């Protein structure tokens, strides 16, 4: 198991280094001089010179890259051009809000998908309905579902607040908006793997041993069917973050998505770079965690390496 974990970690590092490099060069390739962005075009020449030196903008590119890596390794992400606060602080303030939203959405997605997939595995009319519902759920744009939910449950029936994150229950509508596409995908995969496991011989064997239909299924079928779903759930975190950017825009939720959009609007590149790095780190960490969980759930994968 230790070798397995080490192997996965080794794969994680080059990808992260690649993302860091990409972010660095995107930052250098941006149109316009960062000095102009910080001081405005009409600033006096000596102040511009001073700032250029302070930011090490005249150093050769490899040196700048080395310095960037060094700063990163010590957690220094630069300063926001807009608020003048350290980027790390801005990210730290926004991350918990997005995490709260994504966590609630993930929970809701599982709550919706599991019963639907179980019903679908029984076949018949339920299967057709679940299939139609998931196909609608997969095609439903977040930025259509969100306004519809707002309209019905915040405007016509004012049960929930229209925007923000402060009032109790404010998380519910955005979380549902975010949960629906994930839930549809999860349900698809779960019902596919459930119907695959239903015909397996070990289930027949379990029934032959005298286990009831339900017990045999719960103890053996479900556990095996969950494996592929767990993988997808982990890989879906990227999708959830994407959805979070759009959902936060609709519900004016003060998370990472709102931070990114504000940074684009005001050309606040340090914040944009920091946010891209954080998103990538989260996605890679989720992939890694999924791999490890998968190895934990299925001993065969661990052994084969």
């Amino acid at each position, binding site marked *: 198991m230790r070798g397995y974990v080490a192997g996965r970690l080794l794969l994680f590092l080059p*990808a992260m280094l690649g993302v860091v490099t990409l972010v660095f060069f995107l930052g250098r390739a941006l149109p316009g001089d960062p000095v102009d962005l910080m001081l405005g075009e009409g600033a006096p020449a000596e102040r511009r010179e001073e700032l250029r030196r302070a930011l090490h903008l005249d150093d050769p590119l490899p040196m700048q890259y080395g310095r960037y890596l060094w700063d990163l390794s010590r957690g220094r992400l630069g300063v926001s051009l807009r608020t003048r606060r350290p980027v790390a602080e801005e990210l730290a303030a926004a991350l918990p809000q997005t995490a709260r939203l994504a966590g609630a959405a993930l929970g809701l997605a599982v709550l919706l998908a599991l019963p639907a997939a179980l019903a679908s595995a029984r076949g018949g009319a339920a299967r*057709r309905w679940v299939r139609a519902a998931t196909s*609608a759920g997969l095609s439903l*744009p977040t930025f259509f579902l969100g306004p519809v939910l707002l309209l019905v449950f915040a405007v016509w029936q004012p049960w929930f607040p229209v925007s923000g994150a402060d009032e109790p229950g404010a998380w519910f509508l955005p979380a549902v908006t975010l949960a629906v596409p994930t839930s549809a995908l999860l349900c698809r995969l779960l019902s596919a793997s459930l119907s695959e496991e239903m015909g397996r011989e070990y289930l027949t064997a379990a029934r032959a041993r005298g286990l009831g239909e339900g017990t045999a299924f719960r103890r053996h079928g479900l556990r095996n069917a969950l494996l592929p779903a767990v993988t997808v759930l982990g890989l879906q975190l*990227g999708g959830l973050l994407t959805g979070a*950017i759009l959902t936060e825009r609709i519900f004016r939720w003060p998370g990472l998505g709102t931070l990114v959009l504000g940074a684009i609007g005001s050309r606040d590149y340090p914040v944009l770079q920091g946010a*891209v790095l954080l998103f990538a780190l989260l996605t890679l960490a989720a992939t890694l965690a999924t791999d490890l969980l998968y190895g934990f759930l299925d001993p065969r994968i661990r052994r084969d390496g």
Partner: protein
Amino acid sequence: MARGGGVSRKAAAALVLAWMAAAALAPLLAPAPYAGQDLEHRLEGPSARAWLGTDDLGRDVLSRALYGARVSLAVTAAALAIALVAGTLLGAAAGYWGGLLDQALGRTVDVLLALPGILLAIAVVAYVGRGFSPLVLALSATAWVGYARVARALALSLRGRDFVTASRACGAGGVHVLRRHILPHALGILWVQAAAGAASVMLAEAGLSFLGLGIQPPHPSWGEMLATGCDCLLEAPHLALVPGALLFSAVWALNTLGESLSEGMDPGRRHRVDAV
């Protein structure tokens, strides 16, 4: 099961054709110019004068929706075409030749997969600028990865086959083998992949436009119309509902068509469906 699938497949095909026709004929079908403002009739609901109402600047929603279909379909088609060609060529070359090229492609794909698609697209738009070409570039920059992976896997499995060995024994070079033997074999599967991916490209386009990073006003797109609708949700809900429903119908149709194509490609799955 099979019959029910057939009905939705036909409905999906009809919808896709209808949207393509609407996009192509928008100048003929639209009752008003898409940018024609009429500030005396702002935020009006559907009426005999404007069938789907008017927006915050008094522009005709139906006309904007028809022209918006043009933008959505054109951007989706262009981004998909670039992604398919670039992904296929890079993936097939990496799979066939292997070595350093394959290593480089593998690392690049790892990095791109670590970034949520829309964030990469946002980064591209933030650095390159806004408009039709940056939008297409941003969307294809994320979409090519999937085709490259499939093309690479196909090339890897095809390069050891006897007909490839025979061709090389006759003195054919790598480019010839790729063009005459590998790509023709791989294209069928890649087409199906592209059909299945069209819906997600269209959603991504609408998402970027929704965030204000797509086609710039006064040109309409469904995502941009939805953003306006979100801001006027209290006064004029139809502004969000109309483009939302249109986008949903188009994405559903593309998804359903793509799915039925992939099911048709996979005989094992078709067999199971028939057996149910």
